[in-house]
């Protein structure tokens, strides 16, 4: 079965510092991985995805993610955090065995302090 794990409930970082939000995956076959962000009282917004190709994927709002097959990880990164990046971040894997539903991790709350 496909699954993703987000080991950290919360990540705290100072504004201007680099940030990393961790995600590991377990899939059979090729992984199709996604990051979504949820701001307070808002829906899920797509940030980026890995399907194939370059291991470093660039997405919205200056975020990027590094796919590492040997470590089965897909960590979300940003070189310089902004206070406005504070939100809930979800890693997800697409279950391609049937209807492409997304299987989400438990989420990581990112708090960026001024």
């Amino acid at each position, binding site marked *: 079965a496909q699954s993703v794990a987000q080991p950290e409930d919360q990540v705290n970082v100072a504004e201007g510092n680099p940030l990393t939000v961790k995600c590991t995956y377990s899939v059979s076959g090729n992984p*199709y991985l*996604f990051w*979504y962000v949820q701001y307070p009282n*808002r*829906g*899920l*917004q*797509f940030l980026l*995805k890995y*399907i*194939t190709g370059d291991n470093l994927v660039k997405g919205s709002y200056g975020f990027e993610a590094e796919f590492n097959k040997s470590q089965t990880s897909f960590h979300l990164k940003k070189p310089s955090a902004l206070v406005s990046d504070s939100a809930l971040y*979800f890693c*997800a894997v*697409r279950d*391609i065995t*049937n*209807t*492409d*539903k*997304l*299987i*989400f*991790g*438990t*989420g990581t709350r990112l708090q960026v302090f001024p």
Partner: protein
Amino acid sequence: EPEVTQTPSHQVTQMGQEVILRCVPISNHLYFYWYRQILGQKVEFLVSFYNNEISEKSEIFDDQFSVERPDGSNFTLKIRSTKLEDSAMYFCASSSGTGTYNEQFFGPGTRLTVL
């Protein structure tokens, strides 16, 4: 930019009552999904819908739940007799296809509170 919309944004109901959550997917999309997020927990898949029928449903999606696309634009989720544990944020999503390059676009969600 086209977006998925959902109404209402917040629904409060009494236990045992029926509720209908409404979604308007992106107009040229063909695949539709409902997910839910119990407060503080992860987002869980409920059901997928294509070509006017359910493609897949999760264990959560029992006989109390139903979905339909009544008029070619709306996509609804009905809970026949709500329970306290149905209190959650419900997200609708749509996509243009199921290929590897098709992503799902999510609506803002409906917060359902069952009293």
